């Protein structure tokens, strides 16, 4: 059997990679994808912890998180579309009407 800790390490790596990518990528859609990566990393951690404690609660929580991710995807993509219709761009640098 693979030790649970391996999964936890993998989840930490994926989480940080997601955050890293959010920072270096420059288009809105991919940045949003990075957030999905981070959420998935958290899912992996939940399931690994659930396994190590032999309980099912972690898995239930993952179901909720997937629902949240779906809801976020719907609203988020709608917002990105809205912005794209106005500016004809999804470069994140172009979103700087307000500052200071």
């Amino acid at each position, binding site marked *: 059997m693979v030790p649970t800790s391996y999964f936890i390490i993998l989840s930490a790596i994926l989480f940080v990679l997601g*955050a890293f990518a959010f920072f270096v990528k420059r288009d809105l859609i991919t*940045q949003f994808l990075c957030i999905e990566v*981070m959420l998935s990393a*958290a899912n992996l*951690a939940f399931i690994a912890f659930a396994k*190590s404690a032999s309980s099912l*609660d972690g898995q239930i929580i993952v179901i909720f998180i997937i629902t949240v991710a779906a809801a976020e995807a719907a609203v988020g993509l709608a917002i990105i579309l809205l912005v794209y219709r106005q500016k004809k761009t999804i470069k994140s640098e172009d979103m700087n*009407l*307000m500052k200071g």
Partner: protein
Amino acid sequence: MNSLNAMFPLLTLIVGALLVLILEVSIKRENKTYLAFISIIFLMICGFFCVQSWGKDFSYFNNHLYLDNFALFFSIVLIITTILVTLISMKYLSLQNTNVGEYYALLLLALSGMLIMVSSSDLIVIFLGLEVLSMSSYTLAGLKRDDQKSSEAALKYFLLGSFASAFLVYGLALLYGVSNSTSIAVIIDHFKTESSLSFMAFAGLGLVIVGFGFKIAVVPFHMWTPDVYQGAPTPITAFFSIGPKAVGFAVLVRLLYPFWHVAYDSEVIFSLLWIISALTMIIGNLIALRQTNIKRMLAYSSIAHAGYLMVAILSQDTSSLMFYFVVYLFMNIGAFAAVIALGKKDKEYLELDDYAGIGFKYPWIGATFAVFLFSLAGFPPTGGFLAKFYVFSAAVREGLVSLVIIGVLASLVSVYYYLRIIVYMYMREPTHEVDINLENPALFLVLFLCLYGVLQLGIFPGNILLIIKQAVSSIAFL
């Protein structure tokens, strides 16, 4: 049957929201104010149910639903907020080309998310409530669909908000790994003694604080606030400045109140929040000094107020925190209502220059706005003075003298930018014509109510303090 009773407030809101949605599609009417009235009726029914449950301490669904007086107090504060926001939106929507009936439904749904959050002691439920609130907030921020700023505000709020909730979820995962549960009580139990998992627990708690720190906009998680506040429709900005903050703080109280009592090493979290609070007060007020856009300035001011509220969290004095929120509700909504009052068809007056001479041209609006600004600045005899006073005096009792000194100095700085608006209103010649639409009875009602609230709380705070005392004494926090 009883569990259904406890869910009445929530169910009322959802039924109200669905009704508004259905009416919006089935009845085609240009004038959407009837939807506002419907949602106000439902809000009042919801408030009625909250008052009914006062003192009964419902607890159902494995404590997922936990209606103690603390939760009910915040629920009522939030319901009042939503009623006032609905009232100030009515005319605004048709004037500013945002005439969508779903607006009111989304407000109700956002409120239901907040009620879920304040009346639960389980982090996963709180997280789901937070997402309900967030989704509706993102949408509401972007509702001025022709306005690029509004869309940009929605985008920034959404991307950064989801980013923050990813951290929150990871923090929840760590806490779950430690305690194998998401119930606050169980989680806090694991802080009682040091173990090999302590680091994980603290990191998890830290990430959860980051997640809520984003919602309440404390430094350094505040960066989104000014942009979103500026871009969102003004009534929604008023809503953002109170609703999410109130629930964020309510959750922090639920989380930290037991934590301070049992944790073997609460010092580290304490000093961390100390730093955050000091930074928030200083930076919020300093940047606000240079703003010329009123909404942006109020955004920074709301960041600074989050700093004062953090002081209340640190001094573990829940009653001063609650009192502050009641006052903050009236003075901030009042200030935004005054800002909204200065608008006409397709035009809002938001720059400082627009306010020159307003005090004489529109004496009532000018005078009430001035009272709200005095209150925000903390002048007696307004509620703002007492609120700040309670928070700081509680902090002094707990020995947080240096933090209070920072707070007092920071709020002295803040007086400058609040008063600058008053100076513009009363002591500058107008540079250009400002004419506004005055046919807005609902807005003036709100101005009056907020004025009454601010003064009543500043001069005769006795009754509300009594209620707060009841609410606080009933906090068992499981």
